[in-house]
């Protein structure tokens, strides 16, 4: 039986060489693309996060003036109506009104404070320190704004305490 010898010509070797160069070139391009995309994504994430925080800062400052929070009995720009907020606590439809990135929305009494934090319920209101309107139980960074928390006392007079609105924005 005769042995068959497979011979390689110079042309075939060149094509093989070029194919290897092409593969290396494409891998290099791929690496550059991955690097570029990761840099771009991280800068985009940074931009999105900074816009989110700017928005939260602006929103928390203006929240006292929104119809759901505003104290309308007197002309007071930084007074919020605690009775209205207490009523708002039980209304689930309002969850859609706030921005999606807001994970926490709380109103806290700062002064006078009974010491320990007590969540307001229909049973203990107004002898409590905080009303949680929204808590998605996610990681957040918070922004806050000091306001006057006003409510009507049983003798039909208005009483205001020092408090703050705390807003949590989802952190990446």
């Amino acid at each position, binding site marked *: 039986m005769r042995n068959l010898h497979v011979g390689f010509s110079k042309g075939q070797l060149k094509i093989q060489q070029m194919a290897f160069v092409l593969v290396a070139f494409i891998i290099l391009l791929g690496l550059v693309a991955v690097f570029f995309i990761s840099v771009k994504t991280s800068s985009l994430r940074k931009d999105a996060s900074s816009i989110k925080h*700017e928005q939260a800062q602006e929103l928390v400052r203006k929240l006292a*003036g*929104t*119809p759901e929070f505003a104290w*309308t009995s007197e002309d007071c720009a930084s007074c919020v109506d605690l*009775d209205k907020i207490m009523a708002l606590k039980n209304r689930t*439809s309002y969850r859609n009104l706030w921005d999606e990135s807001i994970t926490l929305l709380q109103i806290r009494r700062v002064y006078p404070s009974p010491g320990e934090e007590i969540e307001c319920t229909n049973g203990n209101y107004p002898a409590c320190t905080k009303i949680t309107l929204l808590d998605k139980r996610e990681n957040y960074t918070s922004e806050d704004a000091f306001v006057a928390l006003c409510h*009507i006392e049983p003798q039909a007079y208005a009483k205001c305490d020092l408090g703050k609105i705390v807003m949590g924005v989802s952190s990446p």
Partner: protein
Amino acid sequence: MFKKGFEFSFTWLFALSVGAIIIFLAIYASRGLIKTGTEEYNTKVAAELGVLLNPIGTNLESSKHYSLALPDETRLFNDCSSDGAFGLQKLSVSVRSGIGQEWPKAGIPHKFANKYVFSQHAVQGKELELFVKPFNFPFKVGDLIILYSTPFCFVAPPSDVEREVNFGDGARYINVTTSKENCPRGSVSVCFSGGTGCNITVIMNQDGRSGRVMKQGQPLFYYDALLYGAIVADKETYDCQVARLMKRTAELALLYAAKSELLSSRGCSSGLEGDLRSYAQHLSSNNLPGLIIESETLERDNEKLTCGLF
């Protein structure tokens, strides 16, 4: 005799075809990158615009004027949806580009549930004018953001409209004149007090707070600050924003009813719970003229209360 010729070997053919593919891929990728970059920029501008719209709300003020200067000629698209509990306001932006398409596709819209922008569907300009007015029906429902870039000419408006337009530095691009002939060329003329021959005609009711705005033969019913929205916005946007405002009014009416119950338990009853709940129900009809009487009755009843609800 032999002619000297160019040998077009397989290596050449291979190199040329691979080179062509690489150049094609490079052009395709760079086009894609430019397109993505433009879309990203447009999305970022819309988001930044959204941030800017937050501090412009009113607190105790009756109106505010703002001018918004943009870095380049921009098209702002105002889309409105009345679905859901509060509906949605969507704003997207397309900034004029010097490369490729003059007006690239708008970026991803920025969405708000608590903003009401009244404008044409597309507003174009390097400077946009904003006129912010609170809307009370009878309690404060929200701030109306009137957005425009084209000049308007108000012909013989009532004194309160003239005062509001000229308040502070005055609303830019809104001229007030006594006759249509004095209107600047190219401006949209708005006739009040029974004037005719204008692009838009305002027919006010005797109460001075409500009426209808006639645009291209179609009536847009308004109440209070909605007058400016009806003048500036197109019908589709106006109707959608009014529907959203009515939804928010209904939610607020239920909120005030709940507040009233809370106050009743502390001996400060208002007795308005039933009226507020039925008002909330009627608001779903979106019949603005029919709701005005109910709103004004609630306003009067609230004024009589010792512990006012709103």
